């Protein structure tokens, strides 16, 4: 089986980092590519969404939000007891794994395209819906339900703004809305930029992610075996769980594989920003190291094919 070219760009980035090449992408390019990907994914999802009535999607959305909230609640005790992590760290990592990785989702979409496997376009809505609740859950896990200290109040305001108006949610939602409102015909003139170039831009972004991840990989030894184990086993179980939910909800093979990927993926954009604000005492090196240094490459290289295979099996394939 041939490795997808976009994955090869990721490996090239990792190689550049490990071989200490002087290759460096400008920070402005990183930001530009991520803005592009978020908008493009939103737009595409919005165009698909326009094909469905809102009421049709209400129940599935609810199921996704509720079952999605179970992920951090399951991860937390494991991290706390088995991993013996501090409360703040366990809560923050749980939030990262409850939330989702937009780029992992994009790579899974590319993978399905490669297998010529169709999927329900409205899964993008689930991507947006899954991104947020885990962040709030994570804060509750860290602080407890009754937050007594008065100076915690303003941070809640800040957190809510970060969660709802943070860059990644804002662009995803904005794109979703524009795509839905304008519909395929009116979006068509934007296709040359947002859809035709999508895969190339994803490749460049993965090159950069490889460079960034390589720095995290080098740090792996500091984390200890438990965290590395968690960062590979938890995604597999979460993916299995997501696939089961997808099957139950009546999604196609493609949709099931995508939902599994969402459950299995760990955030490294929205979650770090939100946790830094709401749970600053958590060590970001742990959560980002696990999600970006281990889970992200794991999902790209191994996870996505596995989740696809699970989806096929669940559909009797």
């Amino acid at each position: 089986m041939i490795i997808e070219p976009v994955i090869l760009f990721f490996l090239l980035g990792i190689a550049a980092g490990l071989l200490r090449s002087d290759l460096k992408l400008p920070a402005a390019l990183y930001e530009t590519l991520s803005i592009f990907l978020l908008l493009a994914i939103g737009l595409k999802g919005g165009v698909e969404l326009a094909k469905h009535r809102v009421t049709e999607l209400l129940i599935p959305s609810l199921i996704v939000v509720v079952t999605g909230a179970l992920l951090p609640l399951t991860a937390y005790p494991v991290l706390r007891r088995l991993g013996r992590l501090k409360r703040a760290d366990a809560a923050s990592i749980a939030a990262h794994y409850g939330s989702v990785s937009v780029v992992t989702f994009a790579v899974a979409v590319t993978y399905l395209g490669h297998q010529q496997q169709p999927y329900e376009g409205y899964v993008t809505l689930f991507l947006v819906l899954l991104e947020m609740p885990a962040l709030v859950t994570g804060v509750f896990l860290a602080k407890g339900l009754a937050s007594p200290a008065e100076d915690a109040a303003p941070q809640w305001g800040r957190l809510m703004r970060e969660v709802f108006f943070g860059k990644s949610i804002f662009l995803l939602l904005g794109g979703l809305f524009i795509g839905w409102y304008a519909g395929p015909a009116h979006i068509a003139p934007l296709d040359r930029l947002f859809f035709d170039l999508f895969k190339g831009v994803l490749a460049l972004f993965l090159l950069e992610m490889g460079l960034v991840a390589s720095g995290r990989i080098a740090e792996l030894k500091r984390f200890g075996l438990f965290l590395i184990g968690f960062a590979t086993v938890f995604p597999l179980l979460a993916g299995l769980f997501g696939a089961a939910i997808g099957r139950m909800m009546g999604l196609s093979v493609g949709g099931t594989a995508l939902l599994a990927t969402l459950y299995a993926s760990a955030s490294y954009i929205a979650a770090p920003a939100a946790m830094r604000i709401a749970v600053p005492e958590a060590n970001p090196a742990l959560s980002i190291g696990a999600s970006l240094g281990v889970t992200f490459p794991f999902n790209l290289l191994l996870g996505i094919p596995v989740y696809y295979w699970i989806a096929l099996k669940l559909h009797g394939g």
Partner: protein
Amino acid sequence: MTTDHRKLLTVICEAELESRLAQDVMRLGAHGYTVTDARGRGAHGVRDAAWEATLNIRMEVVCEAQVAAAIAAHLRKTYYDNYAMILFIQDVEVLRPEKF
């Protein structure tokens, strides 16, 4: 040309904190601030500005000595334990003291 003396307080920290610091320093009596993007290394490891989680900023505030002291005390209390941050203070001569 008469000059006057003020303090220059420089904070180097995670970019994440920029908007909060900006509010803090104005509230504590500064009349302005200047920010540049930075990268670096310290107790929290290498922060290479390759992506958003590892960006630093460098904020400068020219102000009166007691304002500088107040800002320093506030930052120390609020951020030092949980954030990558350093801070230092210097003497400067300024032209229009009423501005600072």
